């Protein structure tokens, strides 16, 4: 068996699963993979098979179903991990149906023993274990079979995956006998359906407990370990104290010299006020040494480029030069962790040091369990900081006008180190735009409320409003200048 490095784990090749399993399966273990039809058991098992084969191993795949191997291979052939050249030299599919029919469970054990030795298999998959359960006359007989199988795995130094769709619980006797128990399932909330995996038991190793979302595509299965359980450990303290420009000199002045490197800035404001414009200014300062990334939900790259052009920013040029990447998330249903990993992967791929997430609401809406959002965002922002990223998020507040105490800053505010508030105010029968800072990490800052404008040369931050009051109520009124 080819070693996988430290700890002699059997890596699965299923992205994310090895993270959940603290490195992979353990050699010589017997694992039950349970899930209803369509849950992805066969894809998962075959993905592991081809991964092991590409590490130089041999695999025996025994089916107990009447399903034809040719149909199985037809379906698998659409998967990128499938390699027809490895069949049958390295992956050998055979049916155990006749042996089970004529010789029962002992026949299956003999078959597995003989064929795995003949093929030199270090991974054995038994697909359709529920057929075995239906064949046995008692629970005791099935337990005996699982016991023999464990012994066989140890003797053969092979890892065994048993795929079953029968609903077993932790009270099931074989639960105590196998080395691991993984459940694949689908849950439906309203119109949305989500796949997930849960490790119920993994003997001899720690693992990340609880539900983890999964995705199935032409690349096979991908497990998305809950981000807050895997990422964001430790901050880059060395960056503390350094400043970088927000993209607007006037705003840098208010911030006390720019935003702290590695910090997270939340730009809050109602629709249309200029949150994206501020983000475009921030991202426009990307360079070859410190590239930028726009991770947005509402505007495509083309639309963002047009919008940037209208305020004098050459986003198209920046993207062509490779200084900025725009990663637009189409308005479909998203999985929270998938978004997080997509963002982090893009950062790691491009080496981005400036990230603008345009519309944090897109992330919040993808959460099946909104209570996860604070810890998820904390993990995400910490991980971005660890990558040396200075980030900016835009968040929409529903109030166009209104008192500040009415504002809901959303769940992101807890992890935002700098908060920029954009407001409308009505004065002299005209709507004006205001900008103010609510919070800046490790810094004194100018808390004055200033007017700003969006021009074809960009955002212009003006002077402090000195002759009006009630600005944050949304309905200001003029105050006569004080006598000197």
């Amino acid at each position: 068996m080819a070693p996988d490095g430290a700890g002699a784990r059997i890596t699965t090749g299923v992205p994310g699963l090895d993270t959940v399993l603290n490195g992979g399966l353990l050699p010589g273990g017997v694992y039950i993979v349970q899930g209803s039809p369509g849950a992805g058991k066969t894809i998962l098992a075959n993905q592991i098979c081809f991964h092991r084969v590409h590490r130089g191993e041999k695999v025996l795949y025994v089916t107990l179903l009447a399903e034809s191997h040719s149909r199985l291979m037809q379906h698998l052939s659409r998967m990128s991990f499938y390699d027809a050249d490895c069949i049958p030299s390295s992956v050998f599919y055979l049916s155990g149906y006749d042996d089970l029919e004529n010789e029962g469970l002992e026949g299956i054990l003999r078959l597995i023993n003989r064929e795995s030795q003949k093929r030199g298999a270090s991974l054995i998959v038994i697909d359709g274990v529920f057929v075995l359960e239906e064949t046995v006359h008692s629970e005791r007989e099935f337990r005996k079979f699982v016991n023999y199988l464990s012994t066989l795995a140890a003797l053969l130094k092979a890892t065994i995956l048993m795929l079953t769709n029968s609903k077993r619980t932790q009270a099931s006797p074989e639960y105590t006998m196998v080395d691991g128990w993984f459940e694949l399932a689908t849950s439906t909330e309203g119109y949305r359906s989500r796949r997930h995996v849960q490790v119920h038991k993994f003997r001899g190793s720690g693992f990340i407990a609880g539900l983890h979302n999964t995705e199935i595509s032409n690349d096979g299965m991908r497990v998305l370990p809950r981000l807050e359980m895997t990422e964001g450990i430790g901050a880059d303290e060395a960056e503390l104290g350094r400043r970088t420009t927000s993209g607007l000199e006037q705003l840098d002045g208010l911030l006390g010299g720019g935003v702290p490197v590695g910090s997270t800035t939340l730009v809050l404001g109602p629709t249309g006020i200029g949150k994206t414009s501020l983000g475009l200014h921030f991202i426009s300062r990307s360079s070859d040494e410190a590239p930028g990334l726009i991770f947005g939900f509402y505007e495509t790259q083309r639309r963002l480029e047009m919008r940037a052009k209208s305020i004098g920013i050459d986003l198209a040029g920046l993207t062509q030069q490779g200084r900025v990447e725009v990663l637009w998330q189409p308005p479909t249903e998203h999985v929270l962790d998938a978004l997080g990993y997509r963002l982090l992967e893009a950062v790691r791929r491009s080496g981005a040091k400036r990230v603008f997430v345009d519309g944090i609401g897109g992330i919040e809406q993808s959460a099946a369990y909104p209570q996860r959002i604070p810890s998820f965002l904390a993990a995400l922002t910490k991980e971005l900081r660890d990558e040396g990223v200075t980030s900016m998020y835009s968040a929409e507040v529903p109030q166009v006008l209104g008192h500040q105490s009415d504002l809901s800053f959303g769940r992101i505010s807890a992890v935002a180190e700098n908060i920029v508030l954009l407001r409308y105010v009505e004065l002299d029968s005209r709507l004006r735009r205001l900008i103010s800072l609510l919070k800046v990490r490790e810094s004194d800052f100018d808390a004055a409320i200033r007017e700003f404008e969006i021009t074809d040369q960009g955002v212009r931050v003006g002077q402090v409003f000195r002759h009006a009051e009630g600005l944050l109520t949304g309905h200001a009124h003029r105050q006569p200048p004080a006598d000197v």
Partner: protein
Amino acid sequence: MATQPQHILLVEDEPGTLNTTAMLLEMSGFRVSKAPNGRRGLDMLLSERPDLLVTDYMMPHMDGLQLIAAVRAEPTLEGLPILLMSAALPAEAARQQVADGFISKPFDYDEFERRVRALLGG
């Protein structure tokens, strides 16, 4: 006097494929014997002496290539035509041309029957 139907031994471990293919061949007028693996297939070849062997590749106990090798080594089975079928293209088998014909699974039955009839000289 009515002619005897030609006799085919079908060796296949997947029960669905085995039974369905056998049924279709019988409907086409052949006599069919069935074996679930190469080992049983070899026993039946020696005892039943069919006119054609149709065998799967990946099977337990004795796979298709091992079965074909055993047939070729058995003088009493000399000249027996063999059609190899498999969901995976057996590259080495194709190279060595161990069988008289190869068909990839899943197959179109009409094409399969044409291959069968061609090997039977019909």
